[in-house]
């Protein structure tokens, strides 16, 4: 039973983490190239910074939780 036990949660968290970081990069590139943003100035940079901190903070914590879950599965 132990060998068959599969850690299904941490890969899901890490995949979602990757998706969110990719989205942040996507927004950053769009912001710097001025694609679809009418005001690529002060406001955009502030908001991009805020979203960056938000995404990294929340999803970084989730990645840490994924690591802990992975260790729980390994029992070490």
């Amino acid at each position, binding site marked *: *039973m*132990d060998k*068959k*036990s*599969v*850690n*299904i*949660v941490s890969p899901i*968290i890490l995949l*979602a983490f990757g998706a*969110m970081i990719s*989205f942040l990069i996507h*927004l950053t590139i*769009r*912001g710097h190239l001025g694609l*679809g*943003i009418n*005001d690529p100035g002060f*406001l*955009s940079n502030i*908001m*991009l910074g805020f*979203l960056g901190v*938000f*995404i990294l*903070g*929340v*999803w970084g*914590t*989730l990645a*840490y*939780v994924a690591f*802990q*879950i992975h*260790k*729980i*599965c*390994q*029992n*070490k």
Partner: protein
Amino acid sequence: MQRQVIEGQLAAMPEEIGGKGFWTIFCILLFIIGAGICAYLYQVVYGLTVTGLSHTVFWGFYIMNFVFFIGISHAGTLISAILRLTGAEWRRPVTRVAEAITAFSIMVAGTMILADMGRPDRLLNMISHGRVQSPLLWDLLSVSSYLFSSSVYLFLPLIPDIALMRDKLTSKGWRWALYNLLSLNWKGTDVQRARLEKAISAMAIMIIPLAVSVHTVVAYVFAMTLRPMWHSTIMGPYFVIGAIFSGLAALLIVMAIVQKSLRLEGVLKEIHFQYLSNLLLVFFGAWFYGTICEYLVTGYGGASAEMRVLSSKMLEEHTWMFWTMIFCMAGTFFILTPWDWVVKRLRLPVATVSPWHAFPLMVLGWVGVFMTISFTPGNPLLWVSGVAYLILFFLILVPSLRQSTVSMAVSASLLVLVGMWLERYSIVVPTLTRPMLEYIGDGSYTPTWVEICITFAGFSAVGLLFMIFSKLFPLISIWEVCEAEEDIPAIVAKLTDEATLPASLQHGSLINESLEVKSNG
């Protein structure tokens, strides 16, 4: 021995659920959801013209429900995360229910956005063409993060209980396979416990600012537009307070249902309802303060665009929604206020408190109701809510209702939920019916059967998800409840070992009180 008894009783709970009443309600909810799906498909085929939405009033029931369900989802954050971090021991039996409400209500909130968009494929535009400046993009990010985080936060404390339930099973059926998959090789070793505590603590710390950001961003969707009575700095905190307020009310109602249906009076005790009722009263105060600030400042400012919206809420076509909300909240205040405590504190010359002592206040309330109705005597719905208000006051006088903490808490919570849903209406619709450009003309909004069906389906979906959850997993966090029982001897030992404590405290009331609190909570 005591621990094994508790574990056995609580672990057997999911399999015991499933009587005739359970499956009847299950089928009814399934039917309502089916009707809602049909209504949604009808809307997808014929477009948003089948709803009461228009070019002027472009948000209605769907957005109201979205804000309402996001609000309900704050129950888990407050009860579970904040009380966990502050070390409130009484939280242990109620955390699981709170976390489940959070996860399920936010799932349903997301579907309301899909319904509001008309064409669901347009959601992809938010990802491929999202604008950093748009509060809608912030909303997408924070709500999706909150949904994911709430699900993880619900799952983490479930791991030891899932392993326990797997071990209690005698045969290896689908249930065993499911528990085995989700228990993640849990053996309950010290290393695993330490890892789990770390993960739960990290999630609890992270999820509080996340939850605050979610409802603030939902408020920003309104407040960042230059529309009357939306463009206000109070909207963020006002939404957060309202969210926690309605989340607590939802939690109290679900707890009462769980307590009665599963006969869990020994675990979900009156003291839990009392503490949560006290919290509800505190958040009523905060909500009331926010409401006064919002309406008084707008009224004193007297800007013509804002006065048109204010007038539509208080005196014109949205009157009954607004005043019924006020009636509901006034009723909540009268039910939740501990009148015995007030009389005792004020040292009033009354030997025993009778509900009739609140009669002068009730008369004042009635005068208020009739004065309000006299503004718009032609509005029959306002008469209905006024009469309901009077009936409510008579109900408060019934001694058997006043003596039961649970029934008082549930009555107040029902009023809060109705009041908060109406508040969402008062925020969303009136502003849109009075556009800034007056030449466009006033808009109107009447929900159609499609919106009503989808709304009922949303509420049913929360209920159905909760029922499915209760059939699979224990609604009480078994390992946390058992952990609290184990703490009792340790606390007693610690207190008696304190050489520095005065003798009166070592053997006196402090130990007894701590024991009493422990065994109660």
